[in-house]
């Protein structure tokens, strides 16, 4: 890799690179993203290497291990270019057949392609699969194309073009204007207008200034940011370099959570490549601008993703939030003006500069521009990463992309925005997803978690699950969040154990009001969403627990009643052997009976009975 001495030099290098590359060359792209890697991406890639070698195709076919292909439910995925045939659930044993049939004979291996659950129709090409059809990848665009360890791959797809344009054709103010005009809002939670944040920081007369990329991603189950850092690390760097030039920062940090070692090594490699090629360091592309990036590894607590806590922890202090103002843009890292943005926010920047603010502003809704990446999980058929234009409806995401609910169960709610998001009921399925509409129904965009729930979920139990998580993660600094979460958790436990009272609902609402008004940081302020939304939309369910002592979803064990149906019971005594407290009695080969006083509602009898004679109500 040369060190680029000028824009022309870079342009010339890219021209030669493109001339060397044949767009029709066969490529095997093995997904090594967060979902596929643990399912055996490395073995699959190794098998391809061996098989290609064996067939004398090693020089002819390009083999790459790349980032998340999106439809993680089909791990391990393999994409064959240029046809864009996508295979799923690939193991190393399938590899010889793929090489033989697809690479040599140009045919599709039918048994490895996507199959529609309802119509049983098969689809081999990416363009024919509904999951991909409804998407508009900007941030995820390169993930299933490039080898994340190759700067050439990034350059070939137009990488560092945005930076080139920013440094050569634009002044810092133009860049901020463009970001402002594009309508880009923070993808890490709050949705604050990115351009405005940059401007505030640029205008502070203090030096040095810092740039931080927030890669803490603490939401349980979320992996959007991880997929981007691992799959397209240069996009994050390029965004940061452009931002640094715009606000006049000399140093940048990427704060990556401790559990993401692969993201760290990919970013580290990308940083070294960028330094070597003159995209980072002194006098970037001979523009006179100096900037460098370092990786900072996070300690792991959820609250460390909050910007002030993150900064404190980077400074070596306790990772607890502090009241704002001052905002980091005014006084951040080491008391200096600091722009902190989320991974996905940064990854959007190069394309906005490259393709123009208008292009971006044309995508999305009035107040939410561009696309958003969601990690779609839960009770849907097709789980994975999706990127859709803002304004796409929940129904489209759940049914078109997600392929509907598993086992055709009934939709109950979708929870957006991570643990402190609200649960949105079926009546809002046609809601266009953007910052403001999600807020209007009591939820948040958050960083893009999306958990779909069917009727087997109990909303009281769901609320308890999230509150318990938030309670455990509350830093304990301020009274309303620390004590409020504890009391809400206590009340929910009372309800789940059949000791709830109707006043409890009002009491929780009072707590929510104080927490959302008076907590220091977003954790305490937004922790109220799961409670408020479930009380508002699923009040009947709370009342069933409180008044009738019933959990209709059959989730809250203490409220369940296990009985033996004398008609079906064969008296095999399987349940008697399993019951840990000896609550089941009766004669052999006769119907058994459960002593309700002794029963601890563990459900072991239910699982033990092969004749479905144990009933739950």
């Amino acid at each position, binding site marked *: 890799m040369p060190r680029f001495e000028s824009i022309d030099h870079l342009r010339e290098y890219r021209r030669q690179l493109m001339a060397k590359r044949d767009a029709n060359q066969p490529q095997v792209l093995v997904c090594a993203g967060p979902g596929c890697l643990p399912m055996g991406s490395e073995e699959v890639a190794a098998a391809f290497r061996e098989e290609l070698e064996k067939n004398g195709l090693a020089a002819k076919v390009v083999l790459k291990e790349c980032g998340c292909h999106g439809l993680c439910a089909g791990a391990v995925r393999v994409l064959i270019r240029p046809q864009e045939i996508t295979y799923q659930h690939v193991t190393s044993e399938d590899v010889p057949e793929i090489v033989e049939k697809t690479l040599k004979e140009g045919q599709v291996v039918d048994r490895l392609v996507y199959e529609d659950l309802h119509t049983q129709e098969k689809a081999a090409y990416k363009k024919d699969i509904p999951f991909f059809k409804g998407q508009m990848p900007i941030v995820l665009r390169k993930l299933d194309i490039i080898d994340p360890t190759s700067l050439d791959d990034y350059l070939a797809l137009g990488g560092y073009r945005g930076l080139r344009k920013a440094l050569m054709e634009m002044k810092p103010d133009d860049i901020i204007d463009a970001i402002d005009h594009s309508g880009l809002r923070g993808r890490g939670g709050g949705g604050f207008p990115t351009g405005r944040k940059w401007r505030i920081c640029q205008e502070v007369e203090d030096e040095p200034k810092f740039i931080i990329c927030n890669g803490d991603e603490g939401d349980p189950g979320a992996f959007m940011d991880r997929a981007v850092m691992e799959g397209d690390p240069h996009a994050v760097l390029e965004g940061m370099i452009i931002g640094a030039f715009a606000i006049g920062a000399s140093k940048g940090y990427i704060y990556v959570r401790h559990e993401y070692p692969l993201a760290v090594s990919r970013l580290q490699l990308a940083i070294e490549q960028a330094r070597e090629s003159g995209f980072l360091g002194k006098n970037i592309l001979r523009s006179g601008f100096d900037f460098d990036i370092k990786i900072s590894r996070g300690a792991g607590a959820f609250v460390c993703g909050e910007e002030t806590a993150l900064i404190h922890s980077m400074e070596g202090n306790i990772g607890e939030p*502090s*009241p704002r103002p001052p905002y980091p843009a005014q006084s951040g890292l080491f008391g200096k003006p600091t722009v902190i943005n989320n991974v996905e926010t940064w990854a959007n920047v190069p394309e906005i500069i490259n393709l123009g603010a208008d292009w971006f502003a044309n995508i999305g809704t009035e107040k939410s521009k561009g696309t958003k990446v969601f990690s779609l999980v839960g009770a849907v058929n097709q789980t994975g990463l999706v990127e859709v234009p803002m304004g796409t409806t929940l129904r489209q995401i759940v049914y078109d992309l997600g392929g509907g609910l598993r086992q055709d169960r009934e939709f109950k709610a979708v929870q957006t925005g991570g643990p402190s998001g609200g649960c949105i009921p079926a009546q809002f399925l046609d809601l266009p997803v953007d910052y403001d509409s999600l807020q209007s129904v009591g939820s948040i965009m958050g960083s893009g978690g999306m958990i779909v729930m069917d009727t087997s979920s109990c909303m009281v139990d769901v609320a308890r699950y999230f509150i318990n998580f938030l309670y455990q993660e509350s830093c304990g600094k301020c009274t309303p969040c620390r004590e409020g979460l504890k009391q809400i958790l206590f009340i929910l436990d009372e309800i789940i154990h059949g000791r709830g009272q109707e006043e409890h609902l009002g009491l929780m609402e009072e707590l929510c009001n104080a927490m959302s008004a008076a907590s220091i940081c977003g954790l305490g302020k937004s922790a109220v969403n799961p409670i408020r939304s479930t009380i508002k939309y699923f009040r009947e369910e709370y009342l069933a627990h409180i008044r009738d002592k019933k959990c209709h979803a059959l989730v809250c064990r203490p409220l369940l009643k296990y009985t033996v149906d004398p008609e079906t019971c064969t008296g095999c005594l399987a349940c008697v052997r399993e019951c840990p407290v000896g609550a089941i009695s009766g004669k052999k080969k006769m119907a058994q009976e459960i002593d309700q006083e002794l029963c601890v509602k563990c459900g072991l009898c239910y699982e033990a009975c092969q004749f479905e004679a144990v009933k739950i109500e």
Partner: protein
Amino acid sequence: MVWKISDETAYDTLGDEVRLTINGVTIRAPQDQSLLVTARQNGFEIPTLCYHRDLPSEGQCRLCVVEIGEHPRTQIVNSCTYPTQAGLVVQTHSETVVQSRRIVLELLLARTPKAKLIQELAAAHGVYESRFKTDDPEELCILCGLCVRTCREVVGVSAISMKGRTPDKQVATPFMEKSSACIGCGSCAFVCPTNVIPYTEKDGIRTIWGRDFELQACNVCGNYIAPKYQLEHWAKITGDPVETFCVCRDCR
């Protein structure tokens, strides 16, 4: 980093005076001074638990919250760290503010039912009983952090800090052992609003944070001044001989 909010102690050095309204009254106050101080200087009462004029505020208790802005775009902020700015419209007792304070006090009353200060403050806000659950009826610490800040900012030794998360958070010495950094000055116990920090003096020995400190008697009157260790610490940081500190204030 603690936001450098100017306090009344630095009144003279403050920059421009700005105009703002509090509860409908227009007042003038130095820009960037905390809203709490501005309000109090002008006779508006705001309750606090974690504020101390000699310490940087960190906003733990959330009792000092006020509502700023105009309907419908208002916001609740804690006045002890929020800077006074031109044109601000502040309400110290809006309905949301009063409700939040009540809930905060009710929560604290459940946490520390026996703390006299909390009982009194809660009663002053119309809260006589808590509807919430108490875990440990003997708990007294309200986690205001005054002790930790005093030890760090005033004493300058950072012998204690906040450990843990959630309501289990507690003030502690490193590794929960006797702290070698503690100089036995007792400032933390003195500043604590609910008198939680165990502190005894007997036969010329002061015990605090599990450590015994031999007290130095005044060379003139013989009354105990402070732990010898503390005086040695002073001698070390000032460069003066230890003897300078062995005469009590009254006898100097």
